[in-house]
């Protein structure tokens, strides 16, 4: 048998490997930072054209997946030819990913939102955000916007107590966090994880300020089921796996209500942690125009109303009408967090949390 025939497969493979390697190295070039002027911008035909030419917007979000995809679909419908790639994970993982990418000089993300204010302070400090103020911003209250125009509050989250009516009788419905230390709640509660969810991190911080760490030490004895995302506890209630959520997104609980699940939300006497979910455009966004167009859309009344109607997401946009019938933010005793203080205490919170809850 001629030798070439036998060797061919091997040498061919070796060659292919070499070729692969070469093409792989040359494939991705650093995208230069887009030169876009600061100051308010409107959705002009030029912007739409430039955005359509880019064709893609990469959206790193911590919004509930179904809500995020629905908003993306609404955008795609308005702007055919632009594909929104939703990269959904918990806030802390979105943060970790962007941090990982930017420290390695890799720029994949166009727009991001997380429910941890600390992240945006950090991003801004690092110079990782682009200055972007859509014209729609004039309608938003001043305290919801970064004064330098790098980010703004895309949504308001509440971390709430909620319960499944089928599993909690009317006379045992709690009104406060303090009541949840009662032995009758042992093994019946579920909560999210601060190492994963920005909402839970903020809520844990706010509650540790309001109730003290000793409260959490006692809560740790209650055999609380631990899940990761703050969007998960309401779903565990819907399954009937646990009767009551200690913390978790209010908007996902509202979504479950809309789907007919007998879920009830409690705004605790001690207060309800308010979690501001900011959004921003990344400084080195690979699709800067599509990013600006999508960012403008996210803050438009239309998108905010859509998120409210179909996802129960609370908006800071004054013209958005909340049709869910729940109390407005001004009617709720809110626990606000200080992002600067929280930023310095992340490690401590995680350590204490592991001490009390095992993970």
């Amino acid at each position, binding site marked *: 048998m001629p030798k070439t025939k036998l060797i061919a497969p091997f040498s061919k493979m070796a060659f292919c490997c070499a070729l692969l390697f070469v093409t792989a*190295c040359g494939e991705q070039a650093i995208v230069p930072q887009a030169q876009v002027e600061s100051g308010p911008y409107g959705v002009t035909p030029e912007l739409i054209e430039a955005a359509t030419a880019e064709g893609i917007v*990469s959206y790193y979000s911590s919004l509930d997946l179904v809500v995020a995809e629905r908003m993306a679909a609404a955008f795609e419908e308005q702007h055919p030819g632009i594909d929104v790639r939703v990269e959904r994970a918990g806030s802390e993982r979105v943060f970790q990913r962007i941090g990982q990418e930017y420290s390695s000089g890799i720029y*994949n993300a166009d727009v991001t939102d997380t429910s941890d204010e600390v992240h945006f302070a950090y991003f801004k400090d690092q110079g990782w955000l682009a200055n972007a103020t859509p014209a729609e911003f004039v309608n938003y209250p001043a305290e919801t916007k970064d004064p330098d125009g790098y980010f703004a509050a895309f949504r308001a989250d509440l971390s709430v107590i909620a319960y499944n009516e089928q599993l909690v009788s009317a006379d045992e419905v709690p009104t406060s966090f303090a009541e949840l230390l009662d032995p009758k709640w042992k093994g019946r509660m579920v909560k999210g994880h601060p190492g*994963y969810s920005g909402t839970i991190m903020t809520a844990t911080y706010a509650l540790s300020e309001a109730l003290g760490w000793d409260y959490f030490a006692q809560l740790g004895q209650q*055999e609380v089921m631990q899940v990761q995302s703050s969007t998960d506890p309401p779903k565990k209630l819907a399954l009937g796996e646990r009767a009551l959520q200690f913390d978790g997104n209010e908007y996902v609980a509202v979504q479950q209500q809309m*789907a007919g699940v007998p879920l009830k939300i409690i705004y605790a006497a001690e207060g309800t942690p308010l979690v501001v979910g900011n959004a921003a455009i990344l400084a080195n966004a690979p699709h800067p125009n599509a990013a600006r167009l999508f960012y403008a859309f996210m803050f438009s009344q239309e998108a905010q109303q859509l998120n409210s109607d179909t996802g129960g997401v609370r908006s800071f946009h004054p013209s958005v009408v909340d049709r869910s019938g729940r109390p407005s933010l001004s009617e709720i005793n809110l626990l606000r967090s200080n992002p600067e203080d929280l930023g310095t205490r992340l490690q401590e919170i995680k350590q204490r949390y592991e001490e009390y809850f095992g993970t």
Partner: protein
Amino acid sequence: MTSKLAELFLNRRFRFDISRPIFVLLALLLAILVVFPLFWLTYYAFFDNDGNATLANFVALISDPTVHRAFGIAILMALGVGALATVVATPMAWLVARTDVPGRGVIRVLVLASFVTPPFLGAIAWEILAAPNSGILNDLYRWITGSDGALLNIYTFQGLIFAIACYTFPYVFTLVANALDRIPSDLEDASSILGAGWSTTLRRVTFPLVLPAMLAGSLIALLQALTLFGSPAILALPAGFHVITTKIWSYFQFPPQLGLAAASAIPLLLITILLLRSQKWILGRKGYTVLAGKGTVARTTLLGKMKWPALGLVGFVLCLTVIFPYAALMKAAFTRNISEPLNFSSLTLQNFNFVFFEFSATRLAMWNTFLLGILSATAVTTLVVIISYVVIRRSFAGSSVLGTLATTPIAIPGIVLGVGLFLSYANPTFMLYGTLWILLIAFVTLGLPSGYQQMSSAMTSVHSDLEDASRIFGASRLKTLWLITTPLLRTSIVATWCFIFIATIRELSATILLTTSNTKLVSVIIYDLNESGNLGAISVLGIMLLMVSFTIVFIANKVPLMSSNRLNLRS
């Protein structure tokens, strides 16, 4: 005849043997694959941010009781999984390979199905089945007994061992069944002729002959369990404990503590080396060559009346690993809320609609997953055939180093390898992050150990006399490998390919750090969906993943991969 032989020898002398440069090239490739991430791992473990040598990371680990706990739990868990998988799989493999138990073909297919099932998907399915309050089996138990307690709780240490063993026992099963297929019956016949009973032969002849395969299988199962991330992340977290991998994962939360993560991987590496050493020690220097230049037929034991209880036992195991979990996933796929009773009004295609039309990641992820599965399986199989050959036949001085290199990644938990690769290749020099290449590198590196284990154990059982004959007649090493060894090992090669393909589909721990929105894989999507509790969508994706993987494995087994018309001693 003599002149022809002389001509062959003459030819050989003047021909340049291309085998050697190719072997050297492969050795280099292997070294880069394995050493590069390990270098970064060690560097981060022993050096601080300013590049000064330090033991601070280890001091921090040793003084942290939560780390001790995570290590203890993980080691117990891995031992539990290894033991459970071996105890369940070995008799099953014997029943299927050597007895007349009914439905052997179906059993093999169902074992393959549990193997194709990613452990994280299995863990999610078991959440649906055995969550204490909403689990289907517990609902059933309450309905039957009228009690209000729970029969099973998957969110426990035992539950975790069970859920992992369900999807790692096929490693042991496949290796043992393959070994039993290969062992010639003449040794057993000799034992019978000399007066040994059925059980004596099994104990003194068959069992010792499959021992290498059994040990290799349980070792793989054990190490898989030790380095697994998905199942513990899904089941241990709700239960309120960490294992090593989830602990390491927590070090990547912001602000990332790469030093601690790297340092906590080093004991894992040492444990693994220890285990591999002990395997060698147990096997000793006994010879296990069972396939030489003589054909044999495996002997079948007739079970008689024991047939049906045996089938029942196997059926029970398969119910737990495949049938119940997939039934649960089916239910979740077709209902809005899995705790709803199943009837016509609760049936919905909403989940399918979401996965196929609303969820933007589905199509890309499916494509990426199968592309990478096929590419890595092909690459790894080619590599391990050559490496095993070089190592087992001691082709070159120092060739055993290749074996060590190929086995080393087994000690690196996927999640740590993920970081190692990120540090190695996600920099301006390589720019591989955000491409499929970095994932391919990860999968090839991760696939090497199990591929090598399997291939070298198969190669050990092929005696070199046939190859020697080929070499004497003037064929180069590579030619011999291609013409003689490979066809002899055809079954093992196809099995290895499928092993790696499936392992790639199942991989989550390294993947999770290396994917981006452009390079999404189904495993990561499923994990993300689980974190936010979208069980319906997970089920749809999971069922689809199983079906496509199964089809590919089926085709792989049918394709006459190489020269089946050539010498094939088994048929």
